[in-house]
């Protein structure tokens, strides 16, 4: 008799159960082991957008956004600036060495790399591509920064070693090679991104419709488990300029990733699908306002006197409520600016800069020092001229138009009447670049380079984009001369700490003199479909697919 609840050891049922348990355990073990090294879902076509047709598929000639994104996805480069860490990392170059005070760089090339057509990659390809980039007759925008080093001697020392010697040193030389996609020697300078060393190559282009990139089967990179990258079969880049349509197609699942969402569209998406909309925090793009200080500008002399006064500019800066600009104009997706660089530029941002307070009393005190008085709610200068100025910006940019209205009311508080005029972009360009017929302008100058050298075209007094007083033959003010001096100093040393110290000085002078009133740093807003695996958006372009080779699609 067997009592219920007791088991008879060694019965046939027990044996079967133990075998079954053993089998299940083995199966679980096998599944666990295979899943550890299983590669993510391969295949599939990732769909993204570009705003315009690419002007060129030649990676050395890429300049505008669409061409540059294609260059990024197709081009194999010697050194890559890691978009997440913001540090240089070896790609086609396993290692490199900069010496001779920044005049010479030597690359050790990665062995066994092939182009997308299966042909071997060699030092000759690197030499031919760099020579093409340096060729003045090609006018390569990617070669421009390298040509700043004067004459260059490019040669292969061996099958996997290339050396480039410049006449003059170039600060931050390594990062320039992030932009130069190596092409086969036979097509260097006239490549079309169809035979490449990057993860994808251009397979098809339909003007006004799309650019199709297909997987490079010979791509050199493998994942940590040794699987061949990229995971995706293709990337289709739709040509789509309308942001509303882009969002609709994203919602329909027709587009997987969106970079640089405007705040209004971000809010729309966030209210419907909070997981897909991502705010990555401050980007390196900021919004600025500057006053016209050009000597020959056709504006009244008394206005020029105001605009050249450091106290006046500082007072305006103090009277603008930057927190409200970020909160109201950008729906909370921006951060009040501290200076000319955003904190998103991790290394070069000057941590010593203090936030600019919103303080109308301090603003009025500064204006008083310059002889301004406020009577019956109107601010007047020492000659009795009421303080008013026009503020232009490009029409159609909603956050910017909202900022204009907010600034208008902020300055009204200290008695300044602002005539806010949104204009079409061509008229703005005409006024700020040619006729100089404007009082103040508000725009966003996009930073594309983390390195301080990327600021030279704005902050050197001789630069064309030195907007408040461009193309000066010699610095118009002592502080501009100081900025020129520190910019040159940072460019002439290889020591990163020294460069940082010099560029910190530039940031501090800029913050003290306020020739450009930095208003807000825009947050990087993106949309990522839940179907995309391994997406790790960052603030630098391309924000959502900087690691395209690791992206995969859920089936």
């Amino acid at each position, binding site marked *: 008799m067997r009592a219920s609840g007791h088991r008879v050891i060694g019965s046939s049922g027990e044996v079967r159960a133990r075998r079954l348990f053993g089998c299940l355990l083995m199966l679980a073990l096998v599944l666990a082991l295979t899943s550890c090294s299983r590669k993510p879902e391969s295949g599939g076509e990732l769909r993204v957008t570009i705003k315009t047709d690419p002007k060129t598929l030649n990676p050395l000639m890429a300049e505008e956004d669409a061409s540059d994104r294609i260059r990024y996805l197709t081009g194999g480069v010697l050194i890559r600036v890691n978009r997440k860490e913001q540090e240089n990392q070896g790609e086609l170059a396993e290692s490199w060495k900069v010496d001779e005070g920044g005049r010479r760089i030597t690359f050790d090339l990665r062995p066994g790399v092939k182009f997308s057509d299966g042909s071997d990659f060699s030092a000759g390809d690197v030499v031919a591509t760099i020579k093409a980039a340096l060729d003045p007759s090609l006018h390569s925008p990617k070669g421009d920064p390298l040509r700043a080093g004067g004459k260059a001697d490019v040669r292969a020392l061996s099958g996997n070693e290339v050396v480039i010697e410049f006449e003059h040193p170039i600060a931050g030389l390594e990062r320039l090679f992030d932009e130069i996609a190596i092409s086969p020697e036979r097509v260097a300078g006239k490549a079309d991104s169809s035979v490449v060393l990057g993860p994808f190559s251009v397979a098809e282009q339909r003007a006004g419709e799309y650019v199709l990139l297909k997987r490079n089967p010979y791509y050199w990179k493998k994942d940590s488990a040794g699987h061949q990258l990229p995971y995706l079969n293709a990337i289709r880049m739709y040509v789509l300029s309308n942001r509303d349509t882009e969002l609709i197609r994203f919602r329909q699942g027709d587009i997987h990733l969106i970079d640089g969402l405007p705040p*209004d569209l971000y809010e*729309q998406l966030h*209210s419907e699908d909070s997981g897909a909309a991502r705010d990555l925090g401050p980007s390196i793009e900021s919004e600025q306002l500057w006053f016209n200080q050009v000597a020959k500008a056709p504006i009244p002399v008394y206005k020029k006197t105001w605009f050249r006064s450091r106290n006046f500019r500082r007072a305006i800066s103090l009277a603008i409520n930057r927190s*409200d600009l970020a*909160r*109201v104009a950008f729906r909370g997706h921006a951060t009040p600016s501290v200076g000319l660089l955003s904190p998103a530029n991790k290394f070069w941002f000057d941590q010593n800069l203090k936030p600019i307070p919103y303080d109308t009393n301090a603003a009025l005190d500064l204006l008083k020092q310059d002889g301004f008085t406020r009577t019956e709610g109107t601010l007047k200068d020492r000659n009795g001229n009421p303080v*008013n*100025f*026009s503020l*232009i910006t490009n*029409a*159609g940019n909603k956050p910017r*138009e*909202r900022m*204009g*209205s*907010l600034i*208008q*009311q902020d300055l009204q508080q200290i008695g300044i009447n602002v*005539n*806010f*005029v*949104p*204009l*079409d972009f*061509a*008229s703005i360009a*005409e006024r700020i670049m040619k006729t100089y*017929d*404007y*009082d103040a302008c508000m725009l966003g100058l996009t930073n594309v380079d983390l390195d301080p050298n990327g600021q030279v075209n704005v902050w050197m007094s001789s630069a064309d984009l030195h907007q408040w007083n461009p193309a000066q033959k010699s610095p118009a003010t002592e502080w501009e001369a100081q900025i020129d001096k520190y910019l040159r100093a940072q460019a002439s040393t290889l020591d990163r700490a020294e460069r940082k110290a010099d560029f910190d000085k530039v940031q501090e002078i800029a913050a003290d003199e306020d020739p450009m009133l930095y208003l807000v740093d825009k947050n990087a807003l993106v949309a990522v479909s839940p179907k995309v695996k391994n997406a790790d958006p960052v603030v630098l372009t391309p924000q959502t697919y900087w690691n395209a080779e690791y992206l995969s699609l859920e089936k």
Partner: protein
Amino acid sequence: MSRARWIATGVLIAVFVLALFASAFAPAPYAKQFRNDTDHPPSTQFPLGTDELGRDRLSRLLYGMRISLLLAPAAALISTALAAIIGGAGAYLGGTWDRATNMFIDLFLSLPWLFLLLTLRALLPLDIPPFTSVVVTFALLGILGWAASARIVAASVRSIRSSEFLLQARAAGCKPSRLLFRHVLPNVKPILLAQFWISVPLFILTEANLGMLGLGVTEPLPSWGNLLRELENYTALRHSPWLWVPLLSLVLVVSLFQFALGTEEPA
């Protein structure tokens, strides 16, 4: 006058009073930004809610109506008068005059006015006061908006000119001025009125679009046109039905105008 017409006239007068004395009825100044209450839904403090800058929508609607109700009909009057003079005169005189007028109208319609407006904006001083900018905008709309109406007026006059009653009047020895004022104009009047009523909302909407070129009503001044620009945000429209109020009020006012001043059908 019919009862419907009395009611329409009464409501229109009420709307005009509201708009003209906006400062007395508006809950807040039209430019005042309540920055902690942006995109606020309707409440007792803000009966139509607030816009993206926290400005009271009802106040902006009342002030915006005042500008648009005064200036859009004025612009429509200019354009309809030009259409009547140019289109009507050419067709009435007939022959070479008619052909020349037609060519002129076609040429006028084919010109890229957008670029003219851009050039004009570039030439205007930046410190032009907002109200002057509004007047200039509507005056331009009136001066440039006559051509499409002129073509319709010309077709109508052409048909009247070849009608039997005019032939008989001419045969009876009527003077040209009598022919024009007693026989042609009364018959063209309904067309002119229709063109006028079509032009009013058209100019209000065009003014809104010109804002994109920096030529329309400039901030912070409200107009019906720039209030209608909020309708671009279709997602907000789904969740915030009060955004439809400027559009509905525009439709209502234009309909009331037609009721109140339109030609009454004979019983």
